């Protein structure tokens, strides 16, 4: 039996766990540069605040309602998450940390002190509430897909009190018969539309389709999902996560930038971060994507009409995989020059490294040599120096250096568990 434990509105709940006066108040959490809304409490959802909505659009609502705003406090979320995951290992020895606020548990037949799955779920909820003051929902199912589905049901049905157990064929059949396909784990909006075109709207209908048909429509991943819906596990717990397949950095500027020189500076800075991450996981990248776009919501000053928009991206396949910053920068800059158009105010320029291969991979073509080994060695020395003396102490001359550039956060909260100067005070 698998269980999925998922914290409700994790970011908002993490703030609440150190300030109970926030109980019942709408909370929104903003992205890195206070640009967009990345998390909402239920009360904020009820006010029709949308995920990823630009923060400035909520100005009117904030004047009408008492909305609490936080800049994202990743130190607090990270520590709260690691406490949560560690507490969960007390209930099951095998825990797969699936995301910052979700974990799969593998529950064997023997459950120790808890006679039923329902009791175990209730105990997890009650302990996490007492120890960490976080609300969680628990879903049980014979496969990971069904556990995830049970969790969704537990979240949306208040009568279940946060625990949903799908352990009998009857309970599973009943749950599937009304569950919309678009909410299933692994079905995106694209596949949901495709399935709908064939008249498949509920999970029960999807469970009963022929294997060949689903395999041709949704590849082997779809077939696995259908098997999981029928109760045959295809996804096991992944306790050691695999290396990442792509690396991407694209923080907004916080202000608009019109000229190529400044964009190139920003791009260089992003690229350096990406390359550090790339070398940290000991990979080389084989393709590089540069993209930029203007501010979708900007109005032209004066007449108030929507400003003219431009966005573009370009992907360059490298002659050979590399992780050297200087080498990648040549490609990134030529990519940027190719897609840059004069006369727009840009909000964002970003970079994505893909086609990652292991660090010892060397491919020699007929006309190209492998990566320049001297440059690779140089990059790793730069990393070591920066690790010892601080970020960006040794950097490329073309890299813009502005220590307060990365973050623009106005609504910082305290980091109660990771900084001595921020700990709670009691009178």
């Amino acid at each position, binding site marked *: 039996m698998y269980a999925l434990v998922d914290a409700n509105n994790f970011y908002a709940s993490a703030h609440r766990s150190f300030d109970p006066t926030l109980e019942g108040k709408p909370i929104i959490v903003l992205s890195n540069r206070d640009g967009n809304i990345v998390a909402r409490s239920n009360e904020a959802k009820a006010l029709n605040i949308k995920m990823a909505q630009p923060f400035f659009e909520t100005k009117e609502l904030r004047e009408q309602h008492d909305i609490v705003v936080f800049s994202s406090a990743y130190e607090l979320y990270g520590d709260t998450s690691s406490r949560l995951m560690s507490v969960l290992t007390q209930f099951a020895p095998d825990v797969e940390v699936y995301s910052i606020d979700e974990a799969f548990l593998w529950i064997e037949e023997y459950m120790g002190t808890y006679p039923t799955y329902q009791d175990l779920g209730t105990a997890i909820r009650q302990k996490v509430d007492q120890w960490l003051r976080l609300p969680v929902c628990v879903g049980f199912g014979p496969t990971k897909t069904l556990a995830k589905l049970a969790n969704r049901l537990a979240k949306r049905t208040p009568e279940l009190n946060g625990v949903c157990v799908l352990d009998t064929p009857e309970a599973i059949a009943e749950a599937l018969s009304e569950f919309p396909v678009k909410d299933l784990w692994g079905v995106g909006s694209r596949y949901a539309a495709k399935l709908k075109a064939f008249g498949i709207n509920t999970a029960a209908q999807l469970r009963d389709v022929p294997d060949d048909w689903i395999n041709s429509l949704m590849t082997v991943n779809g077939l696995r999902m259908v098997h999981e819906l029928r109760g045959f596990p295809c996804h096991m717990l992944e306790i050691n996560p695999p290396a990442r397949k792509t690396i991407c950095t694209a923080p907004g500027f916080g202000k608009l930038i019109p000229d190529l020189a400044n964009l190139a500076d920003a791009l260089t800075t992003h690229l350096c971060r990406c390359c550090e991450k790339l070398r940290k996981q000991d990979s080389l990248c084989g393709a590089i994507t540069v993209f930029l776009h203007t501010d979708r919501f900007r109005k032209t000053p004066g007449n108030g009409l929507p400003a003219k928009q431009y966005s573009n991206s370009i992907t360059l396949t490298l002659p050979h995989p590399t992780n050297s910053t200087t080498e990648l920068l040549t490609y990134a800059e030529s990519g940027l020059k190719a897609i840059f158009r004069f006369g727009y105010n840009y909000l964002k320029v970003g970079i994505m490294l893909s086609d990652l291969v292991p660090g010892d991979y060397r491919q020699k073509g007929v006309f190209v040599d492998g990566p320049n080994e001297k440059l690779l060695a140089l990059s790793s020395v730069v990393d070591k120096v920066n690790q*010892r003396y601080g970020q960006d102490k040794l950097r490329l001359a073309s890299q813009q250096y502005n220590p307060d550039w990365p973050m623009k956060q106005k609504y910082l909260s305290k980091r109660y568990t990771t900084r001595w100067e921020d700990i709670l005070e009691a009178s």
Partner: protein
Amino acid sequence: MIDTLDRIPSENIYLVNSARRRRLPFYESLVSAGFTSPAENYIREKLSLDELCVVHPDCTYFVKAVGESMIGDYIYPGSILVVDSVKMVFSGSVVVAWVNGDCCVKRFVRKGHMIMLESSNEKYPPIYVHLGKDQFRVLGVVTFIVSKPPKYVRFS
């Protein structure tokens, strides 16, 4: 020589909870072939305050005391309180709790349907909490108090 800066490959990095680290025993005796040393049983091991004070590392919080209401319990302004949220709260426990949004450290006493939060300084009257009417939430029980010794000269 091993360069201390050499990166460890990522697959060799595990999430380690330092609070659960177990020290290897260090034997103080020299090894001599032939005889077993009678001093072999003397093992030197370092002590750590974390080990003493933090029983549940995932559920322990540090809280700073302000004000003098708990001076009778050796809690001074600036003391760091070690608060454990796993320990059961009994009548008489010193707890850190939020009452209507204020975070306080007080002695928890049950009084029928109410809870009395008692100070250990007579200048501070007790706080009565009506469950259901007042917003009340316990963070945890104070298990240790970390303070510096007071600095003063006593004239005899």
